[in-house]
């Protein structure tokens, strides 16, 4: 009986966690910028940026222009990448060219949702982008969530890279 209940609860957990919205974009931006959310801006995936983006993601970003929010002190990015089959939406805040916060906003896969927990996302805190486009800190994986971990790590690198481009053009 206990086994049946355990299996049912696992099945239920699976159903609950498939395609979950953990935080809306608006709430993520409110949390990041308090009450005053700056107006969104866009950064184009230009020819000069494409090689580095391809090196980071293994492919080009799905859209040509990427939306971000900048209050002069920090930038917020809402980026998407495929985990195994479906998109994971991640909110990333970059401050002083370092990751300030990573939040999983939408998780659509049926496995690997553990990446939303703080024990995973806080590993990125103060990570920087090195010249070889790698993070300055090692990120520990989660067994059973390898592809999701990989996707979030790529997006963290991408956010740092895009933020770097903004700073260079200022």
């Amino acid at each position, binding site marked *: 009986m206990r086994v049946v209940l355990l299996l049912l609860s696992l099945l239920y957990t699976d159903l609950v966690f498939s395609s979950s919205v953990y935080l*809306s*974009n*608006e709430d993520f931006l409110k949390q990041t910028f308090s009450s005053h959310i700056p*107006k*969104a*801006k*866009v950064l184009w995936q230009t020819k000069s940026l494409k090689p580095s983006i391809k090196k980071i993601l293994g492919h080009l970003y*799905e*859209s*040509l*222009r990427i*939306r971000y929010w900048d209050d002069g002190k920090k930038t917020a990015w*809402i980026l998407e990448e495929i985990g195994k089959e479906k998109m994971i939406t991640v909110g990333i805040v970059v401050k002083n060219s370092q990751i300030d916060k990573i939040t999983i906003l939408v998780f659509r896969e049926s496995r690997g949702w553990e990446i939303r927990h703080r024990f995973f996302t806080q590993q990125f805190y103060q990570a920087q982008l090195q010249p070889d486009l790698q993070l300055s800190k090692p990120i520990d994986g989660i067994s059973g969530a390898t592809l999701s971990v990989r996707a979030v790590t790529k997006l963290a690198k991408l956010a740092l890279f895009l933020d770097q481009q903004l700073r260079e053009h200022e």
Partner: protein
Amino acid sequence: MTRHHRKHKKRKGHLFILFQWHRRLGLSVAVIVVFLTITGLLLNHTKNFQLDTTFVKNSLLYSWYGIRLPEKQHYFKVRNHYISQVGEAVFLDAQRFPVSVTEIKGVAWYQDMWLIVEKDQLYLLDKEGNLIEKLSKNSGLPANIIGITIRDYPILVTQNSQFISKDDFISWERQAPIATLSNTATITLPTSLQHQIRQQFFAQELSWERVLLDLHTGRFWGTAGVWIIDISAGIFLLLAGSGFMIWWRKKRQRYHGKKK
């Protein structure tokens, strides 16, 4: 005639019958052996022959597999171009756009961009068909859109309101209704374009590796094909057995002949 001679003659008779049947069975499956050898060899080297990445273009094969175009199809004509929704796929004339939709509500052309709108989504594509941005409720897009029109700026029409974006699609402001959606007349696609879209739609549906695999297993011809391959496989086993028996008996005959 001694008893030994009679026994030897009887054995020779058995061997002849066995040989006859071996020959008959061999001939009956010879074509299948050749066919399975060729398909098997090709399947062993699908990567070398790029059969896994080469797709069937023959419409007869698609009909044979029962692969048909989805029934859900909507067509729009903007600036002498046809924008078609076929199932979840979107085509600009015969070129497939890199987006997947549920139901297109409207299409517009604005500042060298294609704007394709769904109930809760807006896709911006450049003139080459690359996705510029996908906007949704999360990007501040109004919900329940029923159409799009251009009056200096893009205007999204919802059930009760209209929204205008004057800042390059960053934000949408509600405005007093000024725009009306043009009546969407029923559009018929030119036959040549229909054919091209059909080919493009099926461009990555059926690989040659799949066809070869189905030919090799007999599934290409349905249940009957599978049975033919199964029966042939049974005959191959019999042939192996009868071949071994013939070899064994001949060997014994030669051995006995030498002994005498």
